[in-house]
């Protein structure tokens, strides 16, 4: 399979983590919290769009809610190949980490 970019990978993971609440605003908050870097809305939109193009996520509009000035949310969820992609990434990562000398940062 094709490897994803780091941001796509993180966003994909965040979508899985947030499950039903996986839409742009909580996604950007979650990613900001976990990575310690500022993820703007735009930084979330773009990977999401690419992921959707690659068929790793799908999205649907919710009914409008009053908290958003009557505007709809766009909730994302993993597709089958999305889930497979996440697993594949994890495998690759673990393979890369396994059996190497312990990494110590000297002071």
């Amino acid at each position, binding site marked *: 399979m094709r490897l994803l970019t780091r941001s796509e990978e993180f966003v994909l993971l965040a979508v899985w983590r947030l499950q039903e609440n996986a839409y*742009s605003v909580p996604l950007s908050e979650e990613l900001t919290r976990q990575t310690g870097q500022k993820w703007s809305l735009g930084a979330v*939109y773009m990977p999401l769009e690419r992921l959707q193009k690659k068929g790793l996520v799908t999205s649907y*509009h919710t009914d409008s809610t009053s*908290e958003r*000035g009557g*505007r*709809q949310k766009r909730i994302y969820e993993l597709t089958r190949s999305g889930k497979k992609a996440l697993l594949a990434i994890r495998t690759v990562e673990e393979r890369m980490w396994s059996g190497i000398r312990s990494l110590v940062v000297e002071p």
Partner: protein
Amino acid sequence: MAWLLDRLLPDGDHRAPLGDFEEIWHHIKDERGTLRAHAWYILAVLGLIPRRIYNSIYFGLLMLQNYLKTSWRNMLRNRTWSAVNLLSLTLGTACFLLIAIYVHEESTFDAFHTDADRIYRVNVDFIGQSYTFANALSAAPMGPAIQTTASGVDHAVRISQVRPEVLLQVGSMRDFEENGFYADSTLFHVFSFEMLEGDPGSALVAPQSVVLTASTARKYFGRKNPLGEFVRMDNTTDLTVTGVVQDPPTNSHFRFDFLISFSSLNPERLTNWFSNPYYTFLKLSPNKSEASLRPVLARLVDDNMAADAASAGVSIRLWLQPLLDIRMNPQGNDLSDGRGAGHVFILSGIALFILFLACINFVNLATARSSTRAKEVGMRKVIGASRGQLMGQVLGESGLLGLIACLAGVASARAALPWFESLVGRTVAFPFGWELTLFILGLAILVSLLSGIVPAIQLSRLQPIGILKGNGGQSALRGAAFRNALVVFQFTVSVALIVVTIMVYRQVGYMKSIEHGISTDQIAVIPVNEPQVAAIPTLKEQFLRLPGVEAVTWANRAPGTGASGNLIRRLDTGEDDSMENKYIFADASYLDVLGASMVAGRYFEPHPAPAAPSLGSPMATDVRRQFILNETSVRMLGWASPEEAIGQPLEFGGSVLGDVIGVMADFQFQPLTVSMQPVIFQYAPAGQGVLMVRVRTDRLPESLASLEDVWNAQQPDWPFMVTFLDDEFDALYASEEQFGRMFSTFAILAVVIACLGLFGLATFSVQRRRREIAIRKALGATDGGVVLLISRKFGLLILVANVLAWPLAWVFVKDWQQAFAVQASMTLWVFLGAGAISLLIAALAVSTQSIQASRTRPAEALRVE
């Protein structure tokens, strides 16, 4: 803000992102207040803008690249079409560019001086009952008087020409110089001529100082530094070189070769308020307006000049003319040789017309081709091109052509510059640099808009369904009327220019052919200057003794070259009205040499009289003088017949009294560009002026040689100069001939451009009608019939253009001829000739195509399907 956000977001579904922004806004509002929330929202939205702009440029460029590529391929595919367009646009832009540079220079004349807008010239208008004489010259006390009585005048400078010709000598190098001026020491405070050597503040202070221009210095001193060296003027005066200035730029109306300090002039001459040989320039303080000086000027007139003027029957008006206005509005006796705003206006008009003609070619060829391009347009529309994009594509095409044509135009304009300079009669500086670049870009945009906008609208209006059904040609036919109108316009301009050209040449020829009223053949003209005045009687006597010489006369001006004017007044009527007359001083043998005839009374007998007055020195008033008038003068002064005028008293120049002793037949003492003016002749045996020698035809070279020998024996220090009167008369109309050359050039350009367009249209028309022609031939049409079929339409258009152009040209020529004393008639033949020329040239342009069409074998044309 939400609306703006909606516009800025990329294409697609905006519902969710808008909601997202709203939600975050709520978050921030809850946590940090409404104000912060609003601030965030606004900043976030505005932050999108740069990105959006970047995107649109990026994709715009991508599209542009595509358009350029298509345009380029289109150009290559239609070689004839592109060549015709490029050639005509190049001609058009080159011509436009040259004229634009010229007009720009004309309209920014003298602007190089620092604070040029604060510099004014004092003009003196003499206003009589029936005429106004506008005069750029003023009296010597004028400048100092204004400076002492008015506040806010920083500097005043007086300038006057030393003499039309001054002999300068350094060592063995000697030559006559034309542009020598006396100038006040304040010259360099007023004008910004750059001083190369010497001190601008003091260079013109001491008497007998001279400041040379760089080229004069080089001519007389070579590479030596001339500072402190001597220049001998007129074999009498030694001038000390106190400075060297840069040559005045070509766009300075005041151009000089050397300047002599004003203090060298005899101070006694500088008090006369009624002698006006000086140009007076003022530099006003910042914020001082010209209007605020008007009361001062009026008071100056009242105090110093009004009384004398009233006794001469005129009133005097002083006014300040801005330096920057002088080139466009030259006054009488002006230093500027400019031809004024009208000339510039005509040239600008022609430039625009020619550019327009070139653009029309693009319009016509592009719309004519629209049927062949209809499929491409249809495809693009089906695929989803918007109308704007299609228009953009056509504009891109015209833009590409325009840009190439402009670059080629710059190159050709640069190459044609020397030729253009001879056409307009002065040097033109080609301004390389960012201004030119900007101008070219602007021109390219103008050209592409002018030529692209109509085809763009037409092409983009095509309906894909119609095109793909196969009747796309329909709309091209609809544009035919429009194209015909444009062709008619092109040829109207061309024919009008041809008519004007013919008429300008006819006018010049006519003026030259008119009898001068005197005989000008075999008359040698030898200029004599002030230092030779004493030797004139001896020279005359010795010239007369030569075998080849028939008669010799002295006069202050040679005929044909014009004359200065002064006021004269009848004393027998008791009225106070005076009028300007030109005056000529001549000796007793004037008639013998020139063959002018007397209508009444007698000519001057030789009698003791003072030499003619020279510049700045007033005439002696104590002698009663004899006057001879020309017929025009008699008529204008109000006598019914020449006989009545004989014996009547006159006053000349406000103070000189005398009686009319004769009336001379009118002859051309000045060019026919001005109507015959009144002349008063007075007797003087000698003075600054010319010796005119009538030489026998059969011994011309020997006679000239012996004249020179006599001169050299008498005046060894002065070079012998000679011209012939008929040559001078021929040269009188140089400026009109130049005007004619200019018009003929532009007429040719216009015709070439129009014919290029016609050629392109004919090519197109033949292409489209290939099969029609083939079928006609197959059915028995002759070659001639086919040629006629193609040419007939164009011939008709040109006939219509002729009919439109004739009255226009007639009005223009009539207006132009107003300025001349005599007018060549505009016969029908002129118009018919122009019509024939236009038809003939157009026929040539069309014939190559139509003949080719008629030669094609029907089988070849029909085989395709």
